[in-house]
């Protein structure tokens, strides 16, 4: 077969390229205009959670982001940010951080606490993953010990991306891909609890911190309304 003039091919290339751009942009805008059910959700965390009572959060809290420039940009990462301290009757205190973002796109992210602690001068060690057994489901939680210059903290957290609770960046991206393919933009949340530990004390005492943190998380999920629970989980 005699080849056609290359003019035909470049015309085809250009027209199909324009079509690609058009279809893609149209689909994106249509997707973005879908009303957000999640957008109306409120995060309402009670000030009394079982045996815990809220106190003002500690001043030296590790912020749930990596500061890449101005503070303003950092605040814009999340739509909703809650930081609060809680004290139990026996004096145990935990710090709760909840970060929520209504619409997650591929380039957005919920900052992983490991990275935030690292960037804010902590060394991470004793990374662990565990499951938090609730009455109706089990959640995968991640924990680590953050050793700072003047203090150390035990940290326990989970990150929800759409329907997925995982801190794995690849799985998160895949979840976003899946959700967008089904015509919705997922939301996401970080739930992080931490408490100071004295590293000079025996390891058993540090394990107590883990127990206290997971007990707090359970109490938290039992205390919140069904609506808030769907934001967190």
């Amino acid at each position, binding site marked *: *077969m*005699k*080849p056609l*003039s*290359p*003019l035909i*091919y*470049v*015309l*085809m*290339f*250009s*027209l*199909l*390229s*324009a079509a*690609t*751009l058009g*279809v*893609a*942009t149209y*689909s*994106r805008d249509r*997707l973005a205009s879908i009303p957000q059910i999640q957008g109306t959700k409120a995060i309402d965390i009670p000030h009394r959670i079982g045996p815990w009572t809220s106190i003002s959060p500690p001043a030296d809290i590790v912020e749930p982001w*990596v*500061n*890449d*420039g101005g503070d303003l940009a950092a605040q814009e990462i999340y739509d909703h940010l809650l930081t609060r301290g809680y004290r139990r009757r026996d004096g145990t205190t935990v710090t709760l951080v909840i970060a929520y973002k209504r619409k997650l*796109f*591929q*380039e957005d*992210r919920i*900052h*992983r606490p490991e*990275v935030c602690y*690292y*960037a*804010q*001068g*902590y060394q991470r060690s004793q990374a662990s993953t565990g499951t938090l057994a609730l009455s109706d489901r089990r959640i995968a939680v991640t924990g680590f010990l953050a050793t700072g*210059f003047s203090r150390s903290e035990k940290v326990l957290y989970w990150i929800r991306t759409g329907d997925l609770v995982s801190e794995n*960046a690849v799985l*998160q*991206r895949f979840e*976003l*891909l899946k959700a*967008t393919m089904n015509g919705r933009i997922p939301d996401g949340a970080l739930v992080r609890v931490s408490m100071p530990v004295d590293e000079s004390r025996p390891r058993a005492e540090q394990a107590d911190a883990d127990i206290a943190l997971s007990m707090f998380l359970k109490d938290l999920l039992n205390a919140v309304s069904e609506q808030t629970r769907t934001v967190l989980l």
Partner: protein
Amino acid sequence: MTSSSTLPTTAPCVSRSIISLIAACGFIVLYVPMFMDFAFLFWAKDEGAHTPILLAGIGYGYWRLRASFHWVPDNKDVSFAFLQFSVGWALYGLGVVQSFYQLQGLSLLPVVAGLTTLAGGRRALRKCWQLNLLLVMTIPLPASLAEAILIKLRLALTASVTDMFAWFGYPVARHGVSITIGFYELRVANACAGLRSMLSLLAIGGLYLILQPLRRPVSTIIFLSTIIPLALAANFMRVSFLVLITYYFGSSSQMLIHDLAAYVEVGVAIFLFFLARFAIERALEGRLA
């Protein structure tokens, strides 16, 4: 090359410039909006400031090979080109719908490869594959990846800069990724930027080698192995420079020259690459090129 021999290779029915122009239109339609997004989202933050330089360099690389583009593809070339376009369009479309900029950026590779095939056949593609591969480096690094990998480099860099200034007796301290010098705190989070752009510096080093290849494989390997330390050195100088500016002139001046520093860094890196190449040529290739 079977059917092209039957064609008048020198006189296609429509002039080559018109064909090139139409192809360019298709390319512009796809990539000008994308680059505008990239410019706003990535290049404006100085982490991506080097990407336009790299793109211009790659463009120049293609321009130098323009003699290979005669626009007489055979049937195989055409099918292969359209296969590549299809992959490119799929990546691009998915990227736009998902706001997944890396996919969109990745589409540049098959689309440019397809155009090369269409314009100069598979022979031209073989000539350009290194340039084509280098386009990977223009894709903005995914934030999650950048954080995970670069934060270690970032801390190491912050530490070494702080150590150096402490050794010289400056009142300097480090806390995570911020450097405190005198009364000022320099968020060397910005150094992350520097490190992301270090990847562009590596790419620029690679481009230099593609445009001016060395004759012996051993000199090529030696040159390649010097690229990373030299890019790191350029980056180290940039951060040190910013620290010094902050110390003597305050943080507002630092902000002012911050962008400039990114470009100076490229200049320094290219100069270092040039020196390295000169030395390697002198030592291994006997005479000057």
